[in-house]
């Protein structure tokens, strides 16, 4: 993927020595917060208008291909035939909780979503942390040994992984390691979060969950790590031509120290940005992998919702995912300011 440039540092350069009313760091933080809030408002509006402005009868979306209780049908008609202004205000009162319950589960939407949050966090969180650690290391090593065998092999492998649909990789792993082909015994569980009947509150239960999540976490880690490694490598190679590295060498530093103390910290800046910017794809990965491995998290719930289609559930999940990514981007911006003094001073 071509590198999207990070935050526009040039626009934030300050005159040396000048101080505004607010400390520049705080000013930057507030502006990013405002931007995040703005984006979220946009998402909420988008969510509302999407279902009402597109061609077709919105009611049919809710009732497509199923028998609907006439009472509910009447409620729907009352809602959708009301003037749009009235509908909008009803929505705005609490955009997070749709007035209708989940169709598939016949329960309030958040009752369905609630218990599925932690499996997704566990799966995606673990994979992201592992992928960042290993991906960054691999990228640094590849860049410093640029053109040598290690780099050539690593770059080829990561490029192939980067071109791979993560769910396909997961399915291949499943078939090889869970079902067992070509004589390899299938030892991993075929799916699910835990063995039925096991209490996941206990230590043994947690180990069971870990065992079940091993393959899905591995799948996501490997796929994410490919991208992070490519980004870090490109970033560090960009940095390696920098003049200040020559200064560092001239001072008598060992090559390893030149890399560790000077090149890498600078190269990490665009890498951090890009890793966070691609969080949208992390969400996508969660959806497909939870589906393939039957992990009862938000991702597989989304697939269930789209099969319905269960509109209230789908809408809420969309809002939830968007909110999560917006928050993550905000964190990324603030983190970047922490790391790059040119932005905050």
């Amino acid at each position, binding site marked *: 993927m071509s590198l999207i440039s990070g935050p526009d540092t040039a626009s934030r350069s300050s005159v040396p020595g000048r101080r505004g009313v607010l400390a520049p760091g705080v000013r930057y933080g507030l502006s990013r917060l405002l931007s995040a809030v703005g984006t979220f408002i946009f998402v909420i509006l988008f969510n509302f208008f999407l279902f009402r402005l597109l061609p077709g009868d919105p009611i049919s979306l809710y009732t497509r291909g199923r028998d609907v209780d006439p009472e509910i049908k009447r409620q729907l008609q009352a809602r959708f035939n009301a003037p749009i202004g009235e509908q909008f205000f009803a929505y705005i009162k609490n955009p997070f909780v749709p007035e209708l319950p989940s169709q598939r589960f016949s329960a309030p939407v958040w009752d369905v979503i609630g218990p599925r949050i932690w499996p997704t966090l566990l799966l995606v969180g673990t994979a992201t942390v592992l992928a960042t650690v290993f991906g960054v290391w691999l990228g640094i090593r590849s860049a410093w040994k640029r053109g040598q065998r290690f780099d050539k092999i690593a770059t080829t492998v990561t490029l192939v992984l980067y071109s791979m649909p993560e769910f*396909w990789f997961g399915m291949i792993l499943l078939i090889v390691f869970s079902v067992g082909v070509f004589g390899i015994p299938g030892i991993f569980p075929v799916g699910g979060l835990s063995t039925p009947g096991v209490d996941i509150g206990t230590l043994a239960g947690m180990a069971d969950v870990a065992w079940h999540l091993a393959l899905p976490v591995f799948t996501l880690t490997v796929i994410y790590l490919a991208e992070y490694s490519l980004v870090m490598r490109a970033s560090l190679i*960009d940095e390696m031509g920098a003049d200040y590295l020559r200064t560092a060498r001239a001072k008598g530093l060992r090559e390893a120290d030149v890399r560790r103390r000077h090149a890498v910290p600078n190269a990490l800046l665009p890498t951090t940005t890009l890793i966070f910017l691609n969080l949208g*794809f992390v*969400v996508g990965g969660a959806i497909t992998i939870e*589906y393939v491995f039957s992990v009862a998290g938000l991702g597989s719930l989304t697939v269930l919702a789209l099969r319905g289609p269960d509109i209230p559930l789908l809408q809420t999940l969309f809002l939830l995912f968007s909110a999560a990514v917006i928050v993550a981007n905000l964190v990324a911006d603030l983190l970047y300011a922490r790391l790059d003094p040119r932005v905050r001073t």
Partner: protein
Amino acid sequence: MTSVSTRSIVWARRRRSWKQLGEQFRRSPTGMVGLAIFVTFAALALAAPLLFDASQLDVTKATGGVYESPTARYWLGTDDAGRNVLALVVWGARISLLVGLCATVLSMFIGTAVGIASGHFRGLIGGVLDRLIDWFLVIPFLPLAIVLATVLGKSLLNIIIVIGVTSWPATARLIRAQTLSVEGRPYLERAKALGAGDLHQMTRHVLPNVMPLVLANTTLAVSISILSETTLSFLGLGDPTAVSWGTILDDAFSTGAISAGAWWYLAAPGACVVLVVLAFNLVGRALEDILDPREGPQ
């Protein structure tokens, strides 16, 4: 008379630089490998009706056994309905490539237009477009695509629209940055001073200078489009009457190919996706290297 000769000079120069680009590309091994892979798949896709009769895709006309592993007759085995997997995969190339390319055209068109416009127009329009790009960039792709596909319904056209409409922001942002840098150049100020209108500036000056970057970005956009189509089809949002690599994978997964150990049914379509996406990635990277070389210390 003068303007005609100036224009022909400009076009001659542009043709030369495109020719140069082509020569440099020919010298890049990764680029050529990528191109070769793509050409192979394109040829296969076009030749599909000649290689395998369309009836081989019909579930009611299947001739093989259920989940037969690869044999001399069925090089890639059969699926759960006894169809020839190789036929499925070759035919699937047509839809996968078609959707990938069409969606990319759409997304590049929107992305380039919005990118140039947001970079060119200062003030309210530019600001609004800028915000729009940033907002769309933040929304995660798959949930948005799922929501849109659900609302629009399952058809080939809708999938193209969904992917096109969700992928344009990344391109727009890149083009916008490039537009801003081009706009800072003196000859654009001169054009403005000579009375060039906005559309003229954008199409005659900015666009040709932004084109090389657009080209490199397009190849990478195609790989994203193909991956997106595969994912959406795999989740069941594709056209149920069309055979694409994604729908094959969906069929395989839903009919229990994994527990049946039918690895050939899963491996083949996925491997094709990997190869084609890799091909475009290689070409895109080769183009990027030519247009924006990163020379580390030699």
